[in-house]
Every structure is written in C-alpha cells, then in structure tokens.
C-alpha cells in the first residue's frame, strides 16, 4: 500500500510539527465521542505522571466519525497556544488526529499509526482502545514501562473479565496460539498493547497491508508476528475489561477476524510454529488475570440447538473438511440429548486442527470453512457454560488450562494433517 494515500498533507504537516518523540500513543476511533474524552484524559494523566520528561504525542486514526470524536481528541493537547490549561506540565503534548481511507477498519488505523511512528521514531508506542472506560493513568505505565525500561518488544494486556466473556478467545484462539507458538499470551487479540519501535517498524514493513489481515484481525497477526519473530514479549495486568456498549460482535465477522487470521497465518509462519519448542512462560507484570462472576443472561438452549442443527445440515460441507472419524464423533455428540450433551475437549481440539488443515489446503472456499466452524463453536460454548456455571475463578482457570494442554497434546496431529492426506 503506497504511503502517499495514508499520509494526507495535513497529517504530514502535523507530524512535522510534532517532530521526534520518545513515546507515541495511538488511538483508533470511529464514532467514539461518548467515551474518548475520558480515555484521552487518562492517557494524558498517565503520561504526565509517569513520563513527565519524555516527549510524547497522541495520534488518533479515525475511520470517518460523524460525531465530534476527532475534535475531542485534539482538545487533549497541552500547549502554550491553548489558553487556560490548569495542568502542570514541563512540556508541550501534541494530540493530533487524522482520518484514514477505507474505514472503519482497525488494521487501517494501525497502519496509519505505524506510519506516523515510522516518521517520528519514538522509543516506545502503545495503542489504546477509545472505549476502554475503565482505563486508569496507571495503565500507561504498565504498558509502556516494560518497553521503556526493560526493552521488551511487545507487551500484551491482561484483564479482569467476566468468566463468560471472550469465549472465542478462551476456547480457541488462546489455547491454539499457545500450543503452536509455545507462549501463554492470554489476550492474543488485544485492543490495547505496547510495542517497541524495532518491532513496530518490522511489522509495518510486512507485505500484509493489502490483504484481508491488513484491515481486520490485524492485532491478532501483530501478536503472532511478535511470537514467531523472536521478539521479547511480556504481559501486564491492567484492570477491568469493560463490556458495555460493544455491539457484541456478530459471531461470523468475529470468527473471520480471529480464526481466519489465525489459520491464514499458519501458512506464513510455518517454520515458527512447527519448531519443536517447549512452552515458555511469558514475563508477566502485575497479578494474574482474574475472573468476575456477575450474573449474565445466556441462552444456552439456543446454542445447543444451533449446534445440533448445524452439524446435521452442514454434513456435506463438514464431510469435505473433517476426517470421517471426527465427523462420526461429532454426529454422535450431536445425537446426545441436551442434559447429557457435552462437546469434549479432545474432539473439539481435533475438530479445530482439522479445520486448520483444511483451510491450509483450501479444500473449499476458505471463508466457507470459517463459517462452517461456527456451529461447532456454539456447541463448545454451550459446554463451557455448562461446566463453569457454578465454578469459581480458580476452577474456570483450571478448565481453560486443561483445554490448553489438550491443544498442546494434539499438536503433532495437526502437523500430520498438514502434509498428509485429509
């Protein structure tokens, strides 16, 4: 993607006026006027408190907001031209905003921010989600500190989440990623994270920006690149992950972004995930991720129904994707009545790996493969909900851990499928 189309003249001028910085914070937005002021205030507070002497800039990449998002971000600047700032600050803090084409797409926003970083060459960068209403100024230190002080290349967040939140990540992305790359990154698809310029430039220089992964699911690929590229990775605990107002992503687009990206990256990173490395712990700062237990409304029956119907109706499609053995097991599972229904970890793991292998071989359209996984995922979700309904935080953690170990155990199976017959 030619850079000229990303850097408009105005944005370039603003970057010129900002000049070289030590810290760059990127905020991708789209119609976030309700939450962005508070987020930007927290960012600013964090910078003033923890990095008061560093030159910093906040860059907002906006996907075409119709509300006052961009102006609200710009208002966070600290400068001598802006009258009536009662803030004690040694330095000017620039807060600039630009609109990117083809939005809203997180990958395009990230690309714009990385382009800015490429020109301003900061020592450390962070991306902060514009709707993290639980953000505290400390988050800035927790994310950037490891990069600035301990030369880490990538810092991934950890949160305190509801035990039913992020199930796709917990049941598929996290375990599979961990099994393949040998690192226990809890949030492989983060909305806020920090990285060094070294890694940022490397990622910016990849030729993925004209592919799908360049617009959606980019952050997952970012994590995978860090893991497979031999960069120094750390995790840091931030706080509560809010759950509001997000339209819960439709499952299919979510799966495209995550599972699609994950499977797609397997081809690209073949040497990295096939290397026979034992799983490594990732340096973790702060407490372990926690799980909260507030009551949540779930419609479990619907999940079960969709699983059963899915397996039945999609049998011809699944037949092209799964091995006959697994398909049989799946059908057997679908035949169980609801009270006894359980989608066991090992069957799930094998299903996922077979899907990955089929994706690699493109036995049918790759997008269809992803879509076909959805009913199976629903079944797994049902099982997760059932197993953890009365579980406390530790038990949930243990169940997730067991699933991860299953994925690790079955990794050779994936390798077998990869080269061999379907």
């Amino acid at each position: 993607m030619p850079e000229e189309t990303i850097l408009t003249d105005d944005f370039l001028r603003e970057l010129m006026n900002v000049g070289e910085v030590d810290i760059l914070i990127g905020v991708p937005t789209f119609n976030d006027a309700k939450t962005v002021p508070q987020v930007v205030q927290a960012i600013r507070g964090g910078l003033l408190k923890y990095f008061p002497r560093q030159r910093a800039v906040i860059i907002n990449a906006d996907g075409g907001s119709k509300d006052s998002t961009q102006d609200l971000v710009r208002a966070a600047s600290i400068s001598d031209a802006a009258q009536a700032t009662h803030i004690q600050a040694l330095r000017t803090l620039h807060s600039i905003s630009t609109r990117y084409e083809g939005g809203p797409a997180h990958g395009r926003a990230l690309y714009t921010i990385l382009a800015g970083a490429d020109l301003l060459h900061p020592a450390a960068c962070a991306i902060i989600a514009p709707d993290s209403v639980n953000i505290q100024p400390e988050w800035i230190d927790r994310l950037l500190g490891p990069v600035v002080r301990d030369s880490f290349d990538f810092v991934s967040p950890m949160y305190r989440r509801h035990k039913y939140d992020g199930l796709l990540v917990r049941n598929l992305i996290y375990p599979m990623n961990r099994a393949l790359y040998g690192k226990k990154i809890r949030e492989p698809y983060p909305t806020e994270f920090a990285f060094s310029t070294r890694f940022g430039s490397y990622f910016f220089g990849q030729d993925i920006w004209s592919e799908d992964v360049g617009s959606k699911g980019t952050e997952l690929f970012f994590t995978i690149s860090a893991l497979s590229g031999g960069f120094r990775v750390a995790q840091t605990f931030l706080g509560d992950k809010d759950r509001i107002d997000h339209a819960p992503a439709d499952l299919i687009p979510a799966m495209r972004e995550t599972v699609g990206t994950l499977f797609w990256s397997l081809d690209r990173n073949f040497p990295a995930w096939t290397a026979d490395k034992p799983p490594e712990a990732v340096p973790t700062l702060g407490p372990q991720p926690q799980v909260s237990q507030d009551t949540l409304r779930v419609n479990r029956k619907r999940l079960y129904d969709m699983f059963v119907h899915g397996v039945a109706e999609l049998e011809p499609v699944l037949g092209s994707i799964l091995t006959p053995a697994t398909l049989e097991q799946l059908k057997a599972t679908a035949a169980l009545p609801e009270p006894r229904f359980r989608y066991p970890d090992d069957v799930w793991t094998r299903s996922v790996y077979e899907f990955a292998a089929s994706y690699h071989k493109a036995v049918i359209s790759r997008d269809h493969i992803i879509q076909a996984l959805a009913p199976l995922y629903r079944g797994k979700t049902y099982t997760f909900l059932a197993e953890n309904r009365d579980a406390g935080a530790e038990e949930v953690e243990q169940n997730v851990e067991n699933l991860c170990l299953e994925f690790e155990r079955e990794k050779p199976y994936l390798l077998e499928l990869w080269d061999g017959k379907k």
Partner: protein
Amino acid sequence: MTTGAGVLTSPSSSLISVQDALWYKDAIIYQVHVKAFCDSSGDGMGDFRGLGQKLGYLQELGVNAVWLMPFFPSPLRDDGYDIADYRSVHPTYGTLDDFKSFLQTAHERGIRVIIEMVLNHTSDQHPWFQESRSSRTNPKRDWYVWSDTDTRYRGTRIIFLDTELSNWSWDPVSKQYYWHRFFSHQPDLNYDNPDVREMMWENMRFWLEMGVDGFRLDAVPYLLEREGTNCENLPETHAIIKDYRARLDREFPGRMILAEANQWPADLRPYLSPDEFHMAFHFPLMPRMFMGLKLEDRKPITEIMQQTPSIPDACQWCLFLRNHDELTLEMVTDMERDYMYDEYARDRGMRLNLGIRRRLAPLLDNDRRKIELMNGMLMSLPGTPIIYYGDEIGMGDNVNLGDRNGVRTPMQWDGGWNGGFSPADPESLYSPLMLNPVYGYQSVNVKSQERFDHSLLSWMKGIIKVRKSTPVFGRGSIEFLYPANHRVLAYMRQYGKETILAVNNLSSSAQAVELDLKRHKGNILIEMSGRNIFPRIGDLPYLLTLGPYQFFWFRLRKI
C-alpha cells in the same frame, strides 16, 4: 544631542546628556566586579584605575552602561554586600578620587555607571551596628531590629538555606537577638526608624551628586517586617520606595533605580511604576530559558511571558542570563527544579541554596551555537539586557571555590602573565585563575578573540550593534506567535512603524516551521545581520527552516 539609542555621537566633553530620561530602555548593561576586572596596583585585586584602563574595551564591545558590584569598605564576607561604610571606597579598589576619575572617563566614552546600594542590611562591622549592639540604650539601638526571642515573624523563609538556620542570631554583646534575612553577619536595618530612612537617602545622594547614573537597590522586598506576614513586599516597603523615588525625580531627574527582587512577576509588578522603580530584574524568565533549551520546547518561556503582567511605558524589565549569584531556581515548581538539577547540575557540588552556581558557557556545554542562541534571545526579548563580565568571551567557572566564587574569577585578557589581569605574583591573586585547557586563560581570553572575526567576542560585538541599530528591541511591544512546531520560539516586536520578527530554534536538530504572518502580508523580510532579502509574506503560512540552535531576526519592510 541624543539619538533614540541614548548614545551620543558628537565628541563633546561628556557624551551623556540628561535629557534622555528613558536611556535605560535602550541600555546594554555590563555587570562587572571591580575586584575581578583589572589590577593596576599589583596587589592581586582589581581596582578602579585598572577598570578605567579597560573602558575602551567596553566601549568597543558596544555596551553603554556598566553596573558595578559593591566596592564599599567591607569585611568582604559576602563579596562586598556586607557594607561597613556607605560613602567610601574599599582601599584595595582605590580611593574616592580614583572612582571619580573612573566615572568621568566612563561618561566621556558614553558609558553610564550604575552602582549598588544595599538598603536592607549592613555589615556587622559597620560603625552603626557596632554602636547599636554596644548597649540597649544606645541612640542607634533602634537602627537595627532587636528582639528578646527568636520567635517573632515566624514563618518567614530563609534565603541562604545552605548556611543559615534562622533569620535571628544571638548577639552575646547586648544579649538580644537581631534580625537578618541574609548572612548572620549582615544585620537588617530597621526601616521603621525615620533616621535610618533619612540616612540612607543621604548616602544615595552622596553618590548621585558625584554623577552616578543609577542604583541597583539590593534586596528590596525585605526592608520591613510585620508580624503575621511573610515579611516580603509589604505596603510599607513600597511607601519607602515611593518616597525615595519622589526625591530622586525632584533632585536628580534622569537617574535610574533598579530593583533586585526575586519574586513572581505578579508580586514584582507593584515595584514597577512611575513612582517606584524604573527597572526590575525579571528573575523567573531566566531559568525557564535554560529549561526551554534543554526540553527543546518553548512552553516554559511562553508561559512565563504570558504570566508576566504588562508594565507602564516608562518602566522596563532587566533581562540576564547569568550573574554573580547562583542560577536561581526559587521561582520554579519542584518538578521543574528537579529537572533543572538533573539536566544542568548533576554534580551536587554545583547546587547552592536553591540554584546552580555555574557560568553561562559551562552551563551550555561550551556549545557556541547555544551560547549565541541564548544571547540572541537575551537581546531580542523585551527588556534591557545585562551581560555578565567574562560571558562575552565564554569564560568558565571553578565550582571548587566556595559559595559563589566560582563565577567570580579574574577576567582573562590575554594568554600571558596572570592572564593579563594583574602584574602581581599568581599566588597573591584574590582568586586562582582558570587553568584547564578548555576554559583556562590561555585558551579563552580577550586578546586572541579580538584578532578573529569568528570569535565569540566578535560575534557579541556584532549582535550588540544590530540590537542598538533600532529602538524596537528596547522599547517595543511583544507579541508571541505560536507555531505548531513547539521547538521554535517566535515573536514580533513592534515600535511605532517598525516591526521585527525573531525566530529561535530551541532544538539540537534542524527544524521546519510555518508561521502565520497573514496580518503582515505583503512585507518583505530582511534578515538583520546580513541584510539579505527573504521572500515576501503571502497568503500561505510562511515557511522557515532553521539549523540547530539557529535564530533569525527579520525586519519587516513593505516596499
């Protein structure tokens, strides 16, 4: 006849005319210590005859006023600010006649003379204090501030934090405490006593009659004390000043008084008025100039200027980069002070009281570009600039000399015997010379710098000449531009029909800046040193590129 710059051109007996009452607005002041400048007698300390011999040098430099540090008889425990006799000259500096002769020569060369008048306190060796302490019933008892306890005026801050623990000291002779805002050997005079006030005026008049052009009144805010206050800037203090000023205007029009008051601009403002001081030092600006340079961000400078109140037309700020004292960090926040300490005075030995005791060149890492930039800002920001002796050649400092003596080493005239300062034995000099290869007198001296056009001294002469070529710098208004590039400090100076644009790059790397000069559309920019033409201002923002630490002064002309 006078020109706007207050320097006469006709070679009459005295180049000074009293008719230009605002001469101080066009002045360029050279701060010098008699003891440190030139020794003619061979006793190891500078004197007035020596100083008189060097007036030609000062005239060539381009300065038109000289501020002499205290030369009165004194035990010299505070470098002369502890005065023992207000109407005489310390014998090592010469006689009163020597001074008169110096004064006359200075005037002949068009250089005005400003001397110190320490109002607030005397030396404890002064006959007044000797009398006052001798007994509680002495007539001069009330000339100083005595107390049975040391708890009065509680809460008043201590100024010399590194040496004094209290503002009260016990006098074993008369068995009472006496008040001193500074060193314990500098007891404060009691200005509630009308005799004290009259006597001090007479002291000033003594020198005014001799022809002295102005006084720097030391430590003005502390003249009076009142319970329940911080004993600074009290209304009664202002009343005393008003009285003195009224007398000054009546009897000696055209003379000037300069306030030394290390206060926030808002507190300083009352001193600057047609019925009080003509000039005052702008203390808070100076550390912020250094801060802005280190941060590579103009914000500290513009913000203090935004907080600086406007002053009457007849009044003037006095600007300086360094002086005989430490670079004071009293008027900055804790965060800013920590930053300045970490960046400019990592070695704790450099820190004194609440400041940093270093000369200009060492503070700026002897970087010629930074030295030029800082001097450029000094000469173009609104106010009268003061050059500290030796900074025009880039002299260094010796932090191993105690207190603030590191910045008061002998002037370096040439690379020969004692650096040309004195014919005496080197061991008998009042202070060791600078000897290291970088700042020593053999590398840094007037004689070698006079020979080359590219030396710092030659450059200083040039910039002073440009400054004096127009009254805009001394008398004009200031309007800051706020270009988006925060590393560039840009402002317009205007006086009458003349407009000047100053653009300063505070960063160590080249910068591009776009200036909004729409209001001056159609003007051609003429760079003031080389007098070359720069493009005309059009509709678009005016793009300038500056090298590291570079600055431009442009005159705007519409032809």
